[in-house]
């Protein structure tokens, strides 16, 4: 099982505890998490299922390449981290 962790910035809006997920790709792993936490999906993905412009996803400390279809591979012991790209003011 891969581990999916979410930035604490999300906790202001809704619960987003770490989760375990099967899935050969980033998209499949996230979908598995969203299946049990549907409200979380719209915070991470846009209407077309792509990563939101100011959301970043890293696998084992490296940014994913495919932000549109989320096809980056995810292994059994990988760690996925979802956080906000820095911006503000």
């Amino acid at each position, binding site marked *: 099982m891969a581990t999916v962790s979410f930035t604490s*910035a*999300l906790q202001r*809006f*809704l619960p987003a505890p770490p989760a375990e997920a099967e899935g050969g790709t980033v998209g499949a792993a996230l979908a598995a998490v969203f299946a049990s936490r549907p*409200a979380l999906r*719209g*915070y*991470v993905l*846009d*209407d*077309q299922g*792509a990563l*939101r412009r*100011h*959301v970043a996803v890293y696998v084992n400390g490296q940014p994913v390449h495919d932000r549109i279809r989320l096809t980056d591979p995810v292994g059994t012991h990988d760690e996925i981290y979802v956080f*906000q*790209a820095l*911006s*503000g003011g």
Partner: protein
Amino acid sequence: MANRLHVGTRKGLFELARDNGVWEIVDTQFLGDPVSAVLADADGSIWAALDLGHFGAKLWRRDCDGAWRELAVPVFPPKPDDAEEDPHPWSLGKIWVLEPGGAAGRLWAGTMPGGLFRSDDGGASWSLNETLWHMPERRQWAGVAGGEQPGINSVLIDPRNPSDIRIGVSTAGVWASTDAGGSWRLINRGMHAEYMPPEQRDNPIVQDVHRLARCAAHPEIVWCQHHNGVFRSEDAGATWREVTAIRPSKFGFAVAAHPTDSDIAWFIPAIKDERRVPVDGKVVVARTRDGGRSFEVLQQGLPQHHAYDLVWRHGLAVDESGERLAFGSTSGGLWISEDGGDSWTMPQVRLPPVAVVRFA
């Protein structure tokens, strides 16, 4: 008269209440989060749309029990492969305006990138108005603010007939439906966009409608603050004539229409778009009481010395009496009038930039 005012800002939603003639903040929600639209219902319900920089558009409702709950947001359908030509995203940018639909539970949401959504369950679920979205002409809708997405900033429902709808679009003119959104047509004749090439100047679809406001008691009377002037329609938006008497300038974003007197409307003029600050550093409200033939420039209680407050499209509101008005600025100024605009007071607050004010 309304004794509550909801102010949506760049960093939160503030509720003011009038107590012994003094307006004070009585509640703060979503502190730190941008609020893009607010709707308050007579039963005490409030809807607040958030425009979170990282996590997208969100919608919350405060119910009669006082608890805030997150609702579903409008969602665009999957973008088909043959829509590659569509220059606009099929993804909710932000909810720009929320309006009651004139029927139980019905709400309308105008959004960027230009989708109109309807809810029949108080905002719990939303459906895209597919007819409008799939019109080939929508691909001609232009973005606002320097090439961003188009946006529906005004939704007018005829109080006598909830199926009769007008929407104002930046930048695509005024559109009408008389069958509750089943069909749409571009209706605005008589507006002109002086900044466009000559052959496009009078084209209805290029008109940058900043904001529409209609007289509730006489819904055929509609006012428009347009990118390069003020216009008035006496046939529910079909034809327009320019209101050239507006002072001190014709540029601005906001307009409010008197609820019962169709001759009265308020505007907050500014230097046109190269600068977008008040004329001569004086914050004023322009009011007509004769259908636009003449204007009074109201300034009592407003800052008249090095004041650079700009008021956005939804930053001006009038209550159902026509006597109480409020407006908020991008500098965080907030002013309230209880005499139709003759005089103004500023509550003892220093707010974040104001996007929207609404009485309840």
